């Protein structure tokens, strides 16, 4: 099990570009807090382009619903955006990529 004392939680990143109409989900990153997450988002997802609007949200705070996706692990309306890492053990190496 991971040593949680040094691990940083996961944040989802949303960007709206200079010519964009709305924020778009671009991925995620790890940060110790929201302020750091904003900095990181700027460094990793925009490489410091100015004029980009950034939203960061802790992944655990997102509630998701997508009735076509049928995994019984998730409640059909209103559940986590994806499985959080308490659930799955890492498989070992395969001989080649």
């Amino acid at each position, binding site marked *: 099990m991971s040593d949680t004392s040094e691990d940083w939680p996961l944040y989802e990143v949303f960007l709206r570009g200079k010519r964009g109409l709305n924020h778009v989900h671009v991925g995620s990153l790890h*940060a*110790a807090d929201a302020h750091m997450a904003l*900095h990181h988002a700027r460094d990793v997802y925009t490489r410091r*382009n100015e004029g980009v609007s950034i939203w960061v949200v802790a992944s655990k705070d997102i509630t998701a619903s997508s009735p076509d996706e049928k995994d019984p692990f998730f409640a059909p309306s209103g559940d986590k955006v994806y499985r959080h890492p308490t659930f799955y053990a890492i498989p070992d190496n395969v001989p080649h990529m």
Partner: protein
Amino acid sequence: MDTYDAYQAITDVTEDQRWAFGAGFDDPLSGIDTTIPDGVSADDLAAYCEMLGDDALLMSHRLQQWVGHAPELEEEAALANIALDLLGQARFLLARAGTVDGSGRTEDDYAFLRGPAQFRHVRLVEIVDNDFGLAMARLLVFSTWRLAVLDRLRVSRDPVLAAIADKGVKEMTYHRDYAAQWVIRLGDGTEFSHQRVQAGLDHVAPFVGELFTDSDVETRLAAAGVGVRPSETHAEFDAALDAVLSAATLGCPAWSASGGATRTAGHRDTLTRLLAELQSVARAHPGATW
């Protein structure tokens, strides 16, 4: 149905310059009036550009040494960004020096062909750091100081310096904020991190006085409305550092006093080793184009 064509994506031409800051093929000074302002000595202006350029070049070098060694992947991206910004500033400044002193030297001539005695940086940027606490302490001091200087340089009568300063202020604000946030996290984090960053600040303290010591070149250029006397930024620096250190629950070190020798390079161990790493490949191939 996902119809996005991946092959199209990779052949689409994009104007996105961001993948290599300042790595374009254009002359960095194109479009800017490069004549020397009236009443300004060309030698002084060239020396000043070298000073500001060398500070940025060597500080960038120290940050580049963190690539692959940062404490988290996100910090790799952040430190590389800062290093790229400073490298960009150095390139503009060193290129400017060459156009001003009549030598026609390029940015690479300055970076790779000068010997230790010819560099004009402050000793702060030479400090070897393999400790993140020390790295952030030094970056905080450097960024706060340089931001204050560039901020005043925006109204320089030299249009090139003014343009470089204008761009640089945005960058330095970001760098200072990054370093300040880290000093605060480390200062007010764990006991261990508190000690490490405090030790970093104490290690940096003896090099701070030099930052606010006016050289003759800076004094003359400031009088001509072209340069900035760093002593004028001391109060702003103190106020900024006090605010950060207080939020970080850190003690303010005894910064060294200004007024001594400034920007005297030479055959110091640290500098010789730094330049060996920086210059060895270039020097091994004299006259080669890369």
